[in-house]
């Protein structure tokens, strides 16, 4: 795929954000789309956002569960960026109408105390770079119609990211076993799904190391103070306007997202 085409695809995705009208799956229209093209398309959108004054505040890792990887027919995760305007405060309703087809995922967010530059980052170095973890809810969304995505579609679409809600009680890594940290996800008060940190590549720290090493190969460093969402501990759940979602993590605390009533 030539760069002009990559720019064209990036523009169509940015247009989908603006109009809230999804576009057709990219792999149907662009037969030659490959992994490098998909990340380049993502990067063109990142450049556009930076040009609008947005700031990158971290990264998200996706496709980290065995079930998701089997569903997508892949054996590795993917990643996208977290912009400053994707972070929503826990105490105010999230405007539901700004998303196209939102879903929610409970995650154990890392906040870094120092830069992490791959490749070559070990789990030990990844752990040493973590300042603390926070309970988090990630809103995922797709600019591709009806979530009909392959791994290439979702990478091009910033790893299907939408928004982030962070809880406000930090926990040190030494105070929690991330692999077995249980999570109960409640939608409007009812238990909807349960999971544990190990659902994320076996351990969320492996996801952090994978991210540092993968972006490192493109010259990108994970920055001190940045947030990393390592992947969902339960299957994603569809969100409707007016919903309230709470993720309760053993030993890490809880985080709640309320969605406004307005529709797009």
């Amino acid at each position, binding site marked *: 795929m030539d760069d002009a085409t990559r720019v064209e695809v990036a523009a169509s995705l940015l247009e989908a954000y603006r109009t809230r009208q999804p576009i057709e799956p990219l792999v149907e229209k662009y037969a030659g789309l490959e992994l490098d093209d998909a990340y380049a398309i993502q990067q063109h959108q990142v450049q556009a956002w930076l040009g609008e004054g947005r700031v990158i505040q971290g990264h998200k890792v996706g496709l980290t569960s*065995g079930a998701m990887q089997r569903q997508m027919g892949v054996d590795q995760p993917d990643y996208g960026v977290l912009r400053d305007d994707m972070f929503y405060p826990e105490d105010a309703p999230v405007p539901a109408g700004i998303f196209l087809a939102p879903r929610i995922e409970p995650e154990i967010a890392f906040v870094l105390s120092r830069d992490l530059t791959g490749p070559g980052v070990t789990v030990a170095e990844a752990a040493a770079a973590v300042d603390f973890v926070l309970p988090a809810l990630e809103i995922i969304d797709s600019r591709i119609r009806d979530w009909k995505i392959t791994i290439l579609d979702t990478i091009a679409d910033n790893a299907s990211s939408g928004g982030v809600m962070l809880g406000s009680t930090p926990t040190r890594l030494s105070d929690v*076993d991330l*692999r*077995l*940290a*249980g*999570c*109960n996800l409640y939608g409007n008060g009812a*238990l909807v799904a*349960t*999971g*544990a*940190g*190990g*659902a994320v590549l*076996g351990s969320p720290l492996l996801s952090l190391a994978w991210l540092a090493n993968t972006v490192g190969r493109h010259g990108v460093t994970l920055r001190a103070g940045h947030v990393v969402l390592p992947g969902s*501990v339960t299957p994603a759940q569809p969100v409707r306007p007016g919903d309230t979602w709470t993720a*309760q*993590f*053993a030993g890490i605390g809880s985080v709640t997202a309320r969605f406004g009533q307005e529709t797009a």
Partner: protein
Amino acid sequence: MAAHEAGHLLDPGATVGPIDLRTAYAVQAEGLALRLAAGERLVGWKIGYTSAAMRAQMRVDAPNFGPLTDRMLLAGGEPVSTALTQPRVEPEILLILGDDLPGGSDRDRVAHAVGEARGALEVVDSVWRDYRFRLEDNTADGSSAAHAVIGPLLPAGVDLAEVGVTLIGPDGERSEATGAAAFGHPLDALGWLADALAAQGSRLRAGDIVLTGGLTAAVPLPSGARIRADFAGAGEVSVRREAAVPPSRTPADTAETGT
């Protein structure tokens, strides 16, 4: 019972037909009576279909229960009975009662009746071919109970709904859940059982062992395989199944085939 002992599988439509739940529990009681007559001892109960994941997998819409006898108990690492035909394994929270627990008890009373909580595996083995059954068929079959594998003690004071568990299958495939997958809370599953037994004129007694319900979908246990679960703050428990037919090949055989 004869089918279980002989390792046969049955089809509900060809045997019991469309029985109701009351009849199903009566059939279950007859099965238990046969076990007791054979010298087994009733040691507690298992609750089935307390998680949405299990109900979805088995397409049933309500929990049920079945008896556990002393012969069904295994320590971690032991092999399952060679009589099992299509065993599957689920991680569960196992409660051992410190006090009798009547029906109609509130959550506090239920909590106080619990002597200890452990991580555990349940081995189920349905007499119904390919696990194709209705809730009633499964109830008649003792809720498929085959073994309770007693694992590590959970830390005192832990919220059982938040206990994380990872089940690691024979091929390394993992699934994660928490205690909340059992009825929202294992104590609520226990309370449901106390009420259900009371409705049948029975009750839970001090010393009873209760498996509170599978937390993940059940994973098949093939011959020669092992399945383990890791419980937060407690540790692992595993169960294995011996190879179906031990290899009888001698060194001479190997030489003869030239491999």
